[in-house]
């Protein structure tokens, strides 16, 4: 294997987290190399407005995503089953290529609620330890909302997030989310304009006593130049947003916020189509000496580096640790190990509402990935769980992103799936129904029997074991989903719907059923090495010159989209590396 010249920093993955770290560390004067297993991608070449609006190519055939032949996982609901490979994607999608998931996300940009970061302490104090269901393994994060606030702010200003503040330094603001944590200044840009369905939803919710506000959005409401000097243009509500790249430079992504500056940074190099196979450790296993990657020729190279950053997205961060022998893999039977423990996803549900076509015309195609009006009254611990017998919650809203007809032709439940009746129902309802795929964005708390480890049977294209996902819904999440979906349906009825079909999350986790791409946990952060893989700065407890960055650090997943919190954690870690670690390389927290 050939060895390349030494670098200060090797970054694995050039999506959101990798781009932020590469920019910050090369700005600090370090020699940085970033490896990306997929191709370089840019607007003009990969999704210009001339052919970006292609539902079949991007949404159905997954052109911008990782393909399972490159890497997949095995899946089962519980340890008594034999896991089988995910042969084609369904429940979640994975980025591949420069920009990562940040290229084809919706850009729904939520902060987590302050109590989330102290979840176990908070729930125990309010409801007592017995209220937390058996087997649930939630824990505190080791970092607080107040510590993260400046870093939330930095990520939002990088992205130009459009929204209405609900809490400015403790003062509740009209029209914003009154439940959000205090923010130090308003959103960088005003909220997006809203379509008919969202406006009706907000009106109905307000009349029912809820507190609606516009969803924080990374789809620009106006031109915006970020602190790096990169400019985004206004969103045109094209309706080809999530799963697609934006042809208008209107959606916050590494491409539209960082990369044009990053590539010009002296000391920065990227290698695309190069997949990192493992992190190399020294003989004692306590220090990373670099990474090994493979190019498209099948040739393996070693890249020595002083600092290694895993920025590969949740499951790949965890997998790299497992395949490199960093830390101990979680074993639920023996109750040992932390790598792979507290893996989570999301508990999404919705309801479809049908209206009289003579009076309602929604034009569902006039939309963007993060548009919509929401309420947060039933998220986190914003409501009393005592009488309800579950923990967790979610935001809910009219957040319909599209009217793309392969995906979005709602028909009432019970309609045949083909033939003249189906056809008539499609025609009748296309323009007079509302359907938000993730209308109810429920939390997914962690459990001792939801985890990642290595599969004993199936192999990747290099002959290494695939990672195995063991994941199912629990009674707590079923109860939560039923409650939240009922509240959501009430609002849809109050909008004037003639019929509402509820779709609460029931039964087993199904790997063919899309549920957001918010995989979290598996290399969680915390105050104690006994219950976490990384410390409060996302630094490995075992290998202090290795940082594992992203939603893999979440001890459990909240009822929000993860990336704004991921961005905040990334800037928090960047700050710790630049201002503490580089001055005295070593553990930032003593175990």
């Amino acid at each position, binding site marked *: 294997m050939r060895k390349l010249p030494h670098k200060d920093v090797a970054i694995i993955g050039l999506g959101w987290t990798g781009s932020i770290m590469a920019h910050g560390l090369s700005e600090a004067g370090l020699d940085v190399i970033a490896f990306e297993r997929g191709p370089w991608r840019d607007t003009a*070449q990969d999704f210009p407005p001339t052919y970006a609006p292609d539902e079949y190519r991007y949404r159905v055939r997954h052109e911008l995503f990782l393909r399972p032949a490159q890497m997949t996982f095995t899946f089962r609901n519980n340890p008594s089953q034999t896991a089988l490979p995910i042969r084609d994607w369904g429940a979640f999608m994975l980025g591949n290529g420069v920009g990562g998931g940040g290229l084809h996300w919706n850009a729904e940009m939520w902060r987590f609620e302050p109590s989330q970061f102290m979840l176990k302490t908070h729930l125990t104090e309010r409801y007592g330890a017995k209220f937390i269901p058996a087997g649930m393994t939630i824990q505190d994060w080791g970092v607080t909302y107040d510590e993260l606030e400046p870093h939330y702010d930095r990520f939002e200003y990088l992205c130009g997030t459009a929204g209405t503040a609900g809490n400015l330094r403790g003062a509740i603001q009209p029209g914003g989310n009154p439940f959000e944590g205090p923010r130090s200044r308003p959103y960088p840009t005003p909220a997006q304009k809203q379509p008919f369905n969202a406006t009706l939803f907000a009106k109905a919710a307000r009349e029912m006593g809820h507190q609606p506000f516009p969803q924080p959005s990374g789809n620009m409401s106006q031109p915006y130049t970020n602190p790096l000097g990169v400019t985004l243009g206004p969103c045109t509500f094209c309706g080809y947003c999530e799963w697609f790249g934006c042809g208008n430079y209107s959606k916050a992504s590494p491409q539209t916020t960082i990369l044009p500056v990053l590539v010009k940074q002296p000391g920065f190099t990227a290698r695309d*189509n190069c997949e990192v196979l493992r992190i190399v450790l020294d003989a004692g296993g306590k220090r990373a000496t670099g990474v090994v990657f493979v190019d*498209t020729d099948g040739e393996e190279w070693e890249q020595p580096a002083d600092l290694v950053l895993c920025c590969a997205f949740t499951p790949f961060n965890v997998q790299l640790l497992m395949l490199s022998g960093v830390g101990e893999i979680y074993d639920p039977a023996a109750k040992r190990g932390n790598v792979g423990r507290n893996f989570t996803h999301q508990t999404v549900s919705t309801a479809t509402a049908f209206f009289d076509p003579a009076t309602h015309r929604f*034009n569902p195609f006039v939309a963007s990935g993060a548009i919509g009006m929401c309420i947060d009254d039933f998220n986190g611990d914003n409501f009393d769980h005592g009488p309800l017998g579950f923990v967790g919650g979610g935001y809910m809203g009219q957040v319909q992103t599209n009217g793309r*007809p392969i995906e979005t*032709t709602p028909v009432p439940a019970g309609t045949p799936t*083909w033939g003249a009746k189906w056809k008539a129902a499609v025609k009748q309802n296309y323009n007079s129904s509302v359907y938000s795929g993730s209308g109810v964005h429920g939390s997914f708390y962690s459990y001792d029997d939801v985890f990642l480890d290595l599969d004993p049977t199936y192999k990747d294209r290099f002959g290494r074991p695939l990672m195995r996902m063991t994941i199912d819904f629990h009674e707590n999440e079923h109860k939560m989903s039923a409650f939240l979906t009922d509240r959501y349906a009430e609002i849809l009825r109050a909008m004037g719907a003639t019929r509402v079909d509820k779709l609460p999350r029931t039964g087993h986790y199904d790997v063919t059923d899309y549920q957001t791409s918010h995989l979290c946990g598996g290399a969680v952060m915390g105050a104690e090495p006994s219950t976490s893989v990384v410390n409060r700065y996302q630094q490995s407890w075992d290998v202090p010159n290795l940082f594992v960055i992203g939603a893999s650090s979440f001890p459990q997943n909240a009822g929000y989209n993860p990336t704004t919190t991921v961005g905040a954690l990334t800037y928090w870690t960047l700050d710790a590396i630049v201002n503490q670690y580089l001055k005295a390389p070593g553990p930032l927290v003593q175990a």
Partner: protein
Amino acid sequence: MLILNRRRLLSGTALVLFTASSAPSRAGTIAGALPWAPGAAAPPRPVVPGPWHFFTPAEGRTVEAIVDRIIPPDPDGPGARDAGCAVFIDRQLAGPFGRAEGLYDHGPFVTGTKQQGPQSRLDPATQYRGALRAIDAYSAQHHDGRPFVDLAAADQDAVIGAIEDGSLPIEDVVTKDFWTMLLKNTRQGFFADPVYGGNRDMAAWKWIGFPGARYDYSDWIDRHNEPYPHAPIGIAEAPLWRPAASK
């Protein structure tokens, strides 16, 4: 200073995926400037009408008959046959989709729970071939030796019902999984951009009122509950672009 050094390595054992239209990319190094290759954009390759690429003529007729029952013509809107859904499926089966390119194809192949998703060892093209044979065999068995295309509409519907409920046996294929694929492919052909061979003349888009590949609705976000006034356009064409005489 511009240092643009994209190493163009020959594709070897590593996996390089071809997308529908773009060339495979190779490992490269990027520093100093955004990598920029003129002419590297990859618009979709339009389907050209003509003979079947994958189906035999008899298979093509059967698929046309099946999709036309799944989405039947009515006075209000087109049926799947006239919309070109069979052509769409044919071209897809002749391409990367038909070969299951990009999917995970290592064994062992074991049928699992519904939640674990399809586990067939056969690619979509092979599944279609076997299914079409099975559909004719089933039709013959239940309807005096006649193939599917010769059945009355109600009898065709009964055969399709037997695919849907899984009672029509297909060798080495889970019938319900095949039905899921067939139904999806038919709807995809019906509603996809016409560049892929279905949704001819954007008939399906016009029928429901979807404006297609228009990319700018800035002027309509505030026009709540008002009909959108413009006809659909596609990636490669607009029905409006015609000599007046043929409109």
